[in-house]
Every structure is written in structure tokens, then in C-alpha cells.
């Protein structure tokens, strides 16, 4: 299990968000999500400067098992993608909250934190799923 950093926010779709100092937001999938997917073998990333709607398709992560869509948890513009994943998608398995980040977005509006979970709330959410 990767340790869950305390400065992250989480969605019910098992994504994490981190607010950067420059106002952008880094997004990845959670340790629970990577565990459920299994070994990742391919990641389809969005284009730089692509505009994403909240809930729109942002990336596709493919494991040995299946392909899963990753939806944008906020609206905004893609300012960076993790190119390392093209050759080493397993970074998401080994370091989901660090080197396995997927996309960085410049939000187009205010982030509705009420729709996101704290680390504790997310942990409780996952524990209830496992029951």
C-alpha cells in the first residue's frame, strides 16, 4: 500500500487532486484504484492545452485486465501530462501519489471542494466498499 499524502483531495471515482502553488491542479488515480486495475500496461493521455469539462474524458488507463476511463474531476485546461507513463505505465502501480501522476490542469473556475473528500473521508469510503 502506498501511503496517502495528507494534502490530497479525493473523488468517489478514485482520483486524487493536489493544488499546486501556481494554481494548477495535479491529478492521478488512487492506490485503491491501481490495486483494483492490476498491472498497468498502457495510458492514453490528453493533448496539452486541451480543454476539459468537469466529468469529461481525460485519460484512459489500461491494465492487463481491462481499459478504464479516467474522467476530469474539474473543468480546466491541460497544462502538463506525465510523459513518463508512455514508456512506464507501471509508475501508477508503484507510486500512484507521486511519479504516477497523470495530468496537471489549470482550473477554469473555482473548485467545489464540497464535492471532494479529505484523506480520512476517502479512506472511510474505501473501507466501506471493501466490506
Amino acid at each position, binding site marked *: 500500500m502506498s501511503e496517502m499524502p495528507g494534502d490530497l483531495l479525493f473523488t468517489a471515482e478514485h482520483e486524487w487532486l493536489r493544488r499546486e502553488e501556481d494554481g494548477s491542479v495535479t491529478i492521478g488515480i488512487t492506490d485503491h484504484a491501481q490495486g483494483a486495475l*492490476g*498491472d498497468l*500496461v*498502457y495510458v*492514453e493521455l490528453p493533448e496539452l492545452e486541451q480543454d476539459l469539462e468537469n466529468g469529461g474524458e481525460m485519460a*484512459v488507463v*489500461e491494465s*492487463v*485486465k*481491462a*481499459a478504464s476511463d479516467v474522467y476530469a474531476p474539474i473543468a480546466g485546461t491541460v497544462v502538463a501530462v506525465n510523459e513518463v507513463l*508512455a514508456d512506464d505505465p507501471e509508475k501508477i502501480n508503484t507510486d500512484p501519489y507521486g511519479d504516477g501522476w497523470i495530468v496537471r490542469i489549470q482550473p477554469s473556475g473555482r473548485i467545489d471542494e464540497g464535492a471532494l473528500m479529505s484523506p480520512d473521508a476517502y479512506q472511510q469510503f474505501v473501507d466501506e466498499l471493501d466490506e
Partner: protein
Amino acid sequence: MGSSTPLFDKHIEAGARIVDFGGWNMPLHYGSQKQEHHAVRQNAGVFDVSHMTIVDLSGGRVREFLRYLLANDVAKLTEYGKALYTCMLNAEAGVIDDLLVYYISATQFRLIVNAATRDKDLAWIRDQGQAFGVTVDERADLAMVAVQGPNARDLAARCIAAQHRDSALALRSFHGMQAGDLFIARTGYTGEDGWEICLPGVAAPALWDNLLAAGVVPCGLGARDTLRLEAAMNLYGSDMDDVISPLEAGLEWTIAWEPDERDFIGRAALQALRDSGSRRRFVGLLLEDRGVLRNHQKVIVDGFGEGEITSGGYSPTIGKSIALARLPAGDYDHAQVVVRDKLLNVRIVSTPFVRNGQIRIDVEEKHDE
């Protein structure tokens, strides 16, 4: 809740992620499917395949019955323990199941059929066997493990009774033998050397423990699927089913056309399809672009029509995506696959993709622009 094999507690002990597979609680993987895959290609892995159905058939006319029931010809089997891979067809030449049949004696044979098709297989065999006075005995008391990989036989041999080791290691491919409580056969579903072992369910956990202690890696159904795909071994329900004939599933080699006078179920329909010349190709595909091929994706062959991927996935050995596909008749060696909203280039390659640890296809040949 589903059924569990005698090894269920061992899977939990080994940290398995359990999934439902045809009504069975089976291990998908024990942490990393890719590592399990590589363990089988490079060393040795063990799979619990106790969910598979073992059926013993006996009777004075059992050989005659199986020559009628199966598309391959059990007349090829004349020595104790010899195995044959075959399809069991319906009258329309659709595949009811694929199976292994072992010769035990002139009046006794053992079949190993798929788990998901158990009920219809048993009903069909009992129904067809009535006229031949065949006794059908499902061996639900037996568990089954597959030990596979270049070191599998050597490591597994340490886990069986000493007096059987030499004869078990001397087994040739597709031969089996009884070794005390164990029935050991040199067969498998991975493209590697190894054994498949049937044994009483109560004895299975101890054998499992001994195999793991000997260094054999526990492997789940996930690795089993990527291994068999690399070996281009068909999966029932994906690559063929009740409405697909062996001729369109790459299994013509399993049909015994000779002798002409042998009447087996599905023969007339098979011959009609063979002679029609319009039958679809069943091929291996290598993805030349980035991405992953998956079951049921549409394949477009410019100028010939459309087909479908029947088994697709990522090949851990090759590091690219591969697939088996049923495509239109014709002479061509490139196609495109619809993946989400994109068209990806694939090349048709000869199968198997991987055998005995070696990549058998030309991975780097470039697509003609």
C-alpha cells in the same frame, strides 16, 4: 456465493484477489499478474484448475462412442495415459466444448472439460452416450493443479512420492500416468513444459504447500489467460462457441477427417463448410501502434470487409499487444482495429506468438506505408 475449490484457503493465505469465474471463487492474481506470467515463462508457476470438470467414461462400447462424439479420433490413442485434444461438436459443427481425452484402457477414458460448460457438456455426453451404454462418472472428488514453466517438472518432481519420480519425469508430451493418488500428465495451457496433476481434493493443499516451498510461484487466472494467448491456445466462449466451427477457429488440425467412413457428430456440416471456400480466417495480430487490443473490438480489412478480435490483450513477454481474430476470407497481411475513436494498425502474424520462453514472431517488421 459460488463454489470454492479445495485450495481456496491456500489462495487467501497467498494473498489472492478472488473473482467469480463461471460460478467459482478463483484467484485472479496474488499481487502482480505480470510477475506471475514471467515466472511461468522463466521458472515455474502453479495454477489451481480444480474448477475444471473431470469425467470418467467406461463401458464396452466407450471407444466406439467417443469416435462418434468427438471430432478428433480416439482411435489414435492406443497406449495407457495418452492424451488427445479435441472439439466436441453439435450437428451444425458448432463447438460445444474443447477438451482433453485420456486413454486409460480399451473400456475407460478420462475427459477434462471446461468449468463454465459443465452442465451442458454432461447433459450432452449422457444423452449421446445412452445408446452406447456408457457410464458417465463426474469426478467432483478430484482437484487439479497445473505446474508450468521450464523448471516446473523438476520442482514438482520433488513434491511427489520418490518411487514415482523417474517414471513421471520420463513422461513424454501428451502422456499421463497414475502415481499413487496422483494422475500426472505432461500437458498444459501456457506454451511451456509442465504437468497437470489430478488428485483427491483432500490431498491438494499439502501438494500446494510443497510446491510453493520448492519455489514454484502461485499464479492466477489472469496470468493463465495472457500465457495461453501468447501460446495462441483457444479459450472456449471467446475464440469459439456453439455457433462457430473449428474450421473458423484455427482448430482444423484437431479434426480427424480420416478415415472417411468414421461418422462423428457435426461431420456433414463441417465438410460442407470446408468445401464452400468462404470460411473466415482465424489469425494472430500484432499491434503496431500504441494501445491494447481487447476482445470484441472490430477489425477492418480494407477491400475485404470486417472481422472481430476474439481474444486480445497485452503480451508481457513481447511488451506489445497481441490478439486472436476472426477475419474475412482473403489474402492480406495488414488490418486496422477500431479502438475507442481511433483506427490502430495491426499486422497478421503466424502463431504461436511465444513458445517455450521464446518470442516466435517477427516483432519489429515495419508496416508498409
